[in-house]
């Protein structure tokens, strides 16, 4: 991130401290999977609800936890931990489902907890460092440093792109980017 030349005296630190004041800030809802904190664009989040039992979808990939009835709409639930390759979540009533709507579809993301809403200047988003893990790169949008912690921004487009959705629809093309 390069601070604007004219505000260089104010410093980058200031931009991070008062992000909500700027017009260019973006809000993210943060959630946890184990010790890690992730963020997702607040504009795609429709609601947050507790985990309820799902109806399994036969022969679906492991991270598809099934479908639920959301006020008459059949909504599939994806296990984000499993999607990230960290094994299946064992859901309890304390687990949380984030319902996101993107383009024409509504889906639910199973996560451990929802922790915060953060405002971030897009310029403060840092790229994912190269770590030799190409598979995860497509889910992730970037990193944000928040005082003492780090939030990884998740890309909806990457999540439901080709890998999650073989063939049927090109989901990534009709989704807005999550960051």
């Amino acid at each position, binding site marked *: 991130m390069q601070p604007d030349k004219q505000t260089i005296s104010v410093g980058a630190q200031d931009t991070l401290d008062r992000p909500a004041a700027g017009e260019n800030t973006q809000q993210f809802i943060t959630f946890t999977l184990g010790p890690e904190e992730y963020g997702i664009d607040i504009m795609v989040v429709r609601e947050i609800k507790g985990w309820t*039992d799902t109806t399994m979808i036969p022969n679906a990939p492991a991270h598809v936890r099934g479908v639920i009835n959301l006020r008459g709409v059949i909504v599939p639930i994806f296990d984000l931990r499993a999607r990230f390759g960290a094994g299946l979540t064992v859901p309890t009533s304390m687990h949380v489902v984030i319902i996101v709507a993107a383009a024409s579809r509504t889906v639910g993301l199973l996560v451990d907890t929802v922790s915060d809403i953060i405002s971030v200047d897009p310029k403060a988003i840092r790229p994912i460092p190269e770590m030799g893990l190409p598979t995860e790169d497509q889910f992730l949008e970037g990193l944000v440093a928040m005082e003492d912690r780090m939030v990884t921004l998740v890309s909806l487009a990457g999540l439901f792109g080709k890998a999650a959705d073989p063939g049927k629809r090109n989901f990534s093309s009709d989704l807005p980017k999550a960051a």
Partner: protein
Amino acid sequence: MNNEAEGYPLAQFRKTYFEECAELLDALQANLELLSNGSGDEETLHAIFRSVHSIKGGAGAFGFGGLVAFSHVFESLLDAMREQKISATPDVVQILLRASDALADIVGAARDEHVLAADFAADILTAMEEALLGASDPTASGVQPKPDSEVNEVSGERRYRIAFTPHTEMLQKANEPLLLIRQLRKLGGLSIEVDSSRVPPLDVIEPESAYLSWIFTLDTGVPQSAIHEVFEFVEDDCDLKIEVVSDGSLAAPAANLAANSANPARLAASKPVDAAVAPATPTQSIRVDVDKVDRLVNLVGELVITQAMLTEQGTLLPVDHYPALIQGIEALAQGARELQESVMAIRAQPVKSVFARMPRIVRDLAATLGKEVRIVTAGEMTEIDKTVIEQLNDPLTHMIRNALDHGIEGPDDRIAAGKPRQGTIHLSAAQRSGRIVIEVADDGRGLNREKVLAKAQDRGLVAAGASLSDEEIDNLIFLPAFSTADVVSNISGRGVDMDVVKRNVQSLGGRITVQSRFGSGSRFTLSLPLTLAVLDGMVVSVGKETFIIPLTAIIESLRPQAADIHPVVGRGLVLALRGEYLPLTHLHRCFAISDAITDPCRGIVIIVESESAGRVGVMVDELLGQQQVVVKSLEANYESVDGISGATILGNGRVALILDIARLREIDSRMATDRTVFNHQNAIIDLPEEAPHAA
């Protein structure tokens, strides 16, 4: 000039025009039927005229020259009948019926942008023109009336044909053709055809030149001089020809308009100024986009599910503590049910729209086969969901053709059998206990049971010694491998293909049966659900999961004995049932459900039948009950899943998946090859790929 150069509104108008055409043609057909069976009156004739006239009016506006030419002659004939120059004799009505069939074809061709053969319907045109000539005054029976013939009769309406080609000078003198057209409209019913064939390509077009010419057809009571008056100021600057066309011999000039539709510039489009204000019976209806109605149906479906959930929760409450709440829930249930019925009724349409097409099919085929057949319809106003109606046409057409082809005998055979010369097909619809029952009955030769049975045994569809009831024998004709063409009837040509009909009907969630008496006819009975948005399902459980099996697919369910279960190498288990061997599909294996009952003798086997997979036994743990469910899409937010046709929401708020039983067997064998499960070595029978075979 008054050109609507933009293409997009035209496309929209065009669509609307063809929608209207479909309705007009239906009305035309219905009224012609009335006329042909003698129950039509003067108003029927007027209504017929209006239908043709409206079709012609729009066709002119869109430049469908061929359509204009044909409907014009048609209209002229009808006009002569209105004026009682020609009476509605059976011969004339026959011509009208054929003309309406041809008109429907021409409209269809215009809509689909097909090109019809140049001599298409030429014979009908000739027949109509001959009928017209016979009616007109012998002295004026020339093909064209004298162009300048002065007709000053004030009494009675006359039809004028006005050919109007403005010169460029006319526009330069600030005369506006539109104003003239408006003035003409004031004189009477006007329809307009525009000839845009002289419009040059866009790059050479002179904006101030006149390229268009018009042909107006004016129905008016005013004398010809009044028409001349309209053109009084421009007569020197245009080509004007006004003639009386009471004998309607205008096919030739109108036909050369056909070149219009090929005009590459497509610049000109006249306004559809069809002022023939029909005093149509005011129908209290509005046009609503189907999408809007579907949305409403979906919303109500959701409401009903929520209501079902509330009702279920309500049963947990003690009535004496919350009497008002319980009452409220009951009232809500009642209201929701009525609301759902009303909303479904919006989408319902009378079966008339399908029935109305059948007389034509009967006419055409009867003529081809040299048979005399009439069709009698009843219950046309019975309403059924639009989604079902759209898919009803094919099976019904098939059944009618079948009745004509194989059921009804030729006239001579009929007389020999002591029947009236003319065969009759009864087509009726009625609503019975939440389903629509459609019957196609003929008074033909009926099914020859001995031959049907012999054929079935010959094909190995029935075990040699099996004793079947008459009804069972009749219904053998629905089996896929059964073609009766050469056996039951001696008429060559297509096979009966009743299995195709059955497949169509089943895909609509319907059932079909036949009753027949040899020598006196057959009756096919179709039973259809009122809607596809709701289906009757059997709720079953497999392990912890719950699934819905469409009730229409289920034949029976049973708990088999161990002795009836046999393993077949490479095919898994088969179930012996009354001399037949049915393949068993393990639902838990299809869907990899771990905690299910695997021993068929401890679970339940549901015998289901599907169009493509035939009869299959599906193994489930338990039957939970029968329920009407609202069908929801899984694809809306996810994707289609093999073996699942949709989803629904049960009373407890949980989602249950609806099985696509036609796919189950294939999934099962695919899953079975992944991990072989046979533990029996003593395989004895090898089963062919498709149908369950007789031993």
